[in-house]
């Protein structure tokens, strides 16, 4: 059963919270039957200077929030951004926000959307800085580098997350957020 039908009260509370935390919020069901929220997130500096306003789409997977499944975040604005070597945005404009298994957000909590949005803001600010440096790099020749720590691309990044935690049970939900057991998802690839 589709998540929004299976958990209507949670879907309702997600929408209510989104209206508090985002601007110009729209909620709907996409053509694959997934619930989504569309909203604008503004990023302000500590003294209230607006760096940018981003339009984002939060897509809830079926089975959310069970077995480590997390929402996927897509960038709907700023699609003129460059794709640099460290751009943590996939081809379909999905943000490579975090390794779901290590983020530490309890997505079963109705308040988790607020925590997710905090993460999105910091991620987008870093991407904003990275994009700025990409442009500057054209003029200065200095290559842009992602600000701060970032996981390696692909399965290597999952391996780093697993190694950093020290141990990941074979029957635990895979840290990649696929909803599968670790032993049936990334563990064989890591070997």
């Amino acid at each position, binding site marked *: 059963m589709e998540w929004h039908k299976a958990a209507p009260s949670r879907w309702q509370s997600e929408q209510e919270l989104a209206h*508090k*935390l985002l601007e110009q919020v729209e909620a709907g069901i996409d053509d694959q039957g*997934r619930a989504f929220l569309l909203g604008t*997130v*503004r*990023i*302000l*500096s*500590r*003294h*209230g*200077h*607006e*760096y940018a306003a981003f339009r984002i789409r939060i*897509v809830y*997977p079926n089975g959310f929030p069970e077995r480590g499944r997390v929402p*996927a975040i897509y960038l709907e604005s700023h699609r003129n951004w460059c794709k640099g070597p460290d*751009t*943590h945005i*996939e081809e*379909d404009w*999905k943000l*490579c*926000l*975090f*390794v*779901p298994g*290590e*983020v*530490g*957000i309890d997505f079963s909590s109705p308040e988790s959307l*607020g*925590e997710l*949005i*905090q*993460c999105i*803001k*910091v*991620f987008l*600010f*870093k991407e904003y*800085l990275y994009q700025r440096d990409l442009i500057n790099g054209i003029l200065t020749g200095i290559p842009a580098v*992602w*600000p*701060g*720590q*970032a*996981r*390696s*691309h*692909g399965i290597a*990044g*999952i391996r780093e*997350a697993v190694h950093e935690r020290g141990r990941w049970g074979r029957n635990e939900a895979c840290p*990649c*957020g*696929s*909803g*599968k057991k670790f032993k049936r*998802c990334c563990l064989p690839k890591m070997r």
Partner: protein
Amino acid sequence: MAWDEQRARQRVTNHDFSDLEVNVADLSREMDFHRLGTKDVRRVPGAHLYADVSNFHDAVADARGDAQKLKKSVRAASVLRRAQSDLLRVYEIGSIQLQAARLHCLVYKPYNDEAERAVRAVVLAVSLNSYLYDVFNDVFSDVRDFEGAVGVAAGESLVANLGFRGERELISLGSCANLGAKVINGIDTITITENVYAFLPDALREHFEKSRTVAGAVTYRAIGPRWRERPRLAEALGVQFDPERLKKRTEEYRDALPLADMELSEAHVLIDLDALSERTSKRTSAVVLYADLDGFTRYVQAAERDEDIVSLVRILHMIRTELHAVVEQDYPGLVLQHQGDRLFAIVHMPPGDRFDKRCANGLAIATGLQSSMEHVLNTCLQDRKDIHLAVGVDVGTVLVTRLGKKGAREVVCLGPQVTSAEGLQLRSAGREIRISKAIYESIDDETLKRQFVKDNQSAYVAKGLTFPKLDEIEEAEAAQAGMLAAEASTQRLKIEVLGSQRPTYRVIPKPWWSGCSAHGMA
């Protein structure tokens, strides 16, 4: 409270001056700019005269905290103000403002006689210097040997009454309005611009020699002409300067203000300017700050049509109101005066031994002023975006009082750092903040300190320093160090402090890239 761009934007939106009624007219015989309404602006041809007693500020330092000596300085300032007003009345000359120890007045009569105005201005200049050196210094020899200098520049300026705090406050705008102060060149001198010199009779002219060029204006300087030494010149010009009579009156003014009736106290709370008078003054350690609108005068000069002037006055209202709010609402500062398009403020909070915190507040105000100008006000200036702020900041002990009659009292702030802060501002270009060594050494924020570079006169200058710029530097550094967080409800970024436990903020997770959607995250 601290500067905030969203709040500043809201303030500027709320204080909408776009439909402010402004009546522009030429000053005519039946008008007197001392009776200007708050909506009136007058084009006034005339000679702007600045009489500076620059070492009045040193009297505060000389006193070394001795209350009696400081009271004597206040009394001397009060008496000088009265005596200068008497001299101005003799020549029917209008006082614009008392700027610390510098008197600014405008010779606007006779209305249609440029030559007579020039002569009158120079005669007043000689009278003011004569009074200071030959009368005032005799009476107040126990305070200090005061040194004076006068500058005169002629031209057309705008005069408006843009008072605040319920007091009348005349301001004058235009290049000649400031030029009189800029041309001052050495103690015991009178310096005039070429368009004043050209109208002088030979008897006066022969005392002047061609001097330096200031802001494109050729100047002429006379060293020390005084009526006592030039009785025939005084007679030829019809000047009646009686030092003995003036001395008697000066002594009467002095004796009418016994030291025992004067109260001078430390400012332990924010100074209430309305409660100050020559009998009630405050002494405090304060950051002194001047912020000048660089580029505004150029637009005043170019404004020929009434609607251009109306637009400029509205812009000035908007800028002044916002800058005022930064000083007094965002921080515990105190605006003492608006001098034309320049703001003069002090920060004496917190009081007592919290010197570094006072300096930090002063510097935050300077940065807040630049932030409002560059990020908020500048977006409302339409095609006048090249108006910027030049800021000078110093710190030291000052004496704050109010002189003049009730209803027209002017705040006076004396102290050596008043002059040095003004000097720092005058050396600064638009978008610059220039600070003294003492202020620089008080900065403990390394990011902020890095923005300042030493200039060739032992001061420190930062170009383009605003809070948004500082934020971006610090937030980028925090992002790099993994210390950046965000608040969901206020949309603000937040730099985490190591070891702090703030439940509302999450440490940022690490981004990664799967390279494809093979992991089925969606």
